[in-house]
């Protein structure tokens, strides 16, 4: 056997940079410890929003970054998740811990139903179609009396903090830990996905569908798989958000802004990279929250101006997102010379 081949085969499959692993482990421990240092309600809320938006952006990253399909209607799956938990809790007393999975399931079903016809479209056509799908969900829920129509649903409040009802009135810390757990689990699963056979094949579909077809990859099926996974990641965030604010309505949970924000976060952080959504959320969410505080209800739209400016700068100078500032051999897949 060729010695160069032997050397190549003996290389580890993945780059295990111990320093990076130590830093990540340290950050995770820090995130678990932060509320213990008496974080006030605002900072707990800020971190909750960062976790939530990072997961939402990661969901979008799976369909857009991994399989190359730009969806502009991803807010629909957030809304489905939100309504699934609230409706089943209010109508049947089903704990959100179960209805979260129901929301994921329904989102997955809708992703298949939407994906089969829509994913035949490509590029801009798919993006426009998903934009309209997202808006149509909002319109339908605005008129659907069973789920409160335009008024939405006011989740029945428990008298005390309740883990089974996923309601905490005395402190936001439990919410912080719930969102943190979902954040960590999602990122771990997407990290595994990116390194799996499925991850490789999705990137092939993204980079060149024709070449992918020549390698026995059914491009349409893989796009649908990515869309379903993406939808099922988005839905639990809607469910948790509903339990967090305890009031949902179509304008809030099916808002087109949700679909746009997740896109901005991902593009800013680095599309197609598992770490991109974390970086994007950690920067954009505080800008949004602080501008809301200092500039009024919706931040006087200054946050959107910031988003626009940052996005322009990124697109011109760093099209691969802020993640591209970090050397590739540290965080990305192994590349040795």
């Amino acid at each position, binding site marked *: 056997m*060729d010695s*160069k*081949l032997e050397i*190549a*085969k003996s290389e580890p*499959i993945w780059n295990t940079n111990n320093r990076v692993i130590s830093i990540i482990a340290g950050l995770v421990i820090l995130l678990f410890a932060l509320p213990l240092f008496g974080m006030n309600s605002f900072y707990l809320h800020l971190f909750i929003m960062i976790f939530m938006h990072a997961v939402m952006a990661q969901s979008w990253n799976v369909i857009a970054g991994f399989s190359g399909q730009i969806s502009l209607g991803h807010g629909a799956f957030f809304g489905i998740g939100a309504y699934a938990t609230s409706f089943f809790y209010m109508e049947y007393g089903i704990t959100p811990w179960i209805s979260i999975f129901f929301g994921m399931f329904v989102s997955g079903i809708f992703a298949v139903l939407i994906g089969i016809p829509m994913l035949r479209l490509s590029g801009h056509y798919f993006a426009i179609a998903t934009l309209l799908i997202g808006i149509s969900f909002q319109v339908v829920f605005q008129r659907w009396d069973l789920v409160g129509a335009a008024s939405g649903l006011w989740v029945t409040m428990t008298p005390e903090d309740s883990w089974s009802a996923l309601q905490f009135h005395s402190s936001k810390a439990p919410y912080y830990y719930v969102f943190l757990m979902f954040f960590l689990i999602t990122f771990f699963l997407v990290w595994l996905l990116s*390194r*799996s*056979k499925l991850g*490789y*094949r999705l*990137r*092939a579909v993204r*980079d*060149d569908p*024709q*070449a*992918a*077809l*020549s*390698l*026995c*990859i*059914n*491009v349409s099926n893989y796009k649908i798989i990515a869309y379903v996974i993406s939808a099922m990641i988005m839905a639990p965030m809607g469910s948790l958000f509903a339990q967090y604010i305890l009031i949902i309505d179509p304008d809030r949970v099916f808002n087109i802004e949700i679909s746009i924000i997740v896109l901005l976060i991902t593009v800013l952080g680095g599309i*197609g990279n598992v770490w991109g959504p974390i970086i994007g959320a950690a920067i954009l969410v505080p800008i949004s929250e602080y501008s809301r505080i200092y500039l009024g209800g919706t931040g006087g739209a200054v946050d959107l101006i910031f988003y626009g400016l940052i996005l322009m700068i990124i697109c011109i100078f760093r099209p691969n997102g802020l993640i591209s500032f970090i050397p590739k051999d540290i965080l990305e*897949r*192994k*590349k*040795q*010379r």
Partner: protein
Amino acid sequence: MKILTVENLSKSFGGIHANRDISFDVEEGSILGVIGPNGAGKSTLFDLITGFTKPDTGKVKFFDKNIFGISPDKISNLGVGRTFQKLKPFADQTLLENVMIGAFVKEKDIKRARDRALEIIDFVDLIEKRHHFAKELSTGQRKRLEMARAMAIDPKLLLMDEVTGGVDQKTIPGLVELVKKLKNTGVTIITIEHNINIIMEISDNVLALDQGKRIAFGEPKEIQNNKQVIDAYLGTFDAA
């Protein structure tokens, strides 16, 4: 044994006949060279065989299986690999990752797929470039990448569109040797090639096309002396 049988294959785009009533067959383990001037329908023929373009009429049989009009992923899954005239590497992925995507067809386990991909990369003499991104490779190296990636699906039949097209003269002999090396592994090859000397050197049979029609099919010597081929494609070849 015949690995591929094509009968009366036709395809039109609007009023243009890209392929008209083309028939030929390929023996297992051989190399068929496809020649013809630009626009003769060579690449379209590849697209029709591999399912990238749906034929209008005709028959395509891979061994005994009818593959007429089947989707490209299903045809490749049967053991028909291909490369492209306009190269299609997964540009933002490394050479190793490119080939691993093909290797996953036969190997489900990531370690085994990686080992298999490395063996093929070694076979095409690019082992030292395994961690380079595809977009960083030269045209000749990307041609080897495409061959390696197609080989990774373990094809019985490999269609290669202009292996030596667009590369410098120094690179050509290495690619020709690689095609010969590939043939020695037992894989059947159909190759489109403009360089007539290469076709004569490597092919067992040659199919000549002109304006979408088959104008000749036979052994290289016959084709070389075929008047229609000389008129349509070779020009002054016999006088040279």
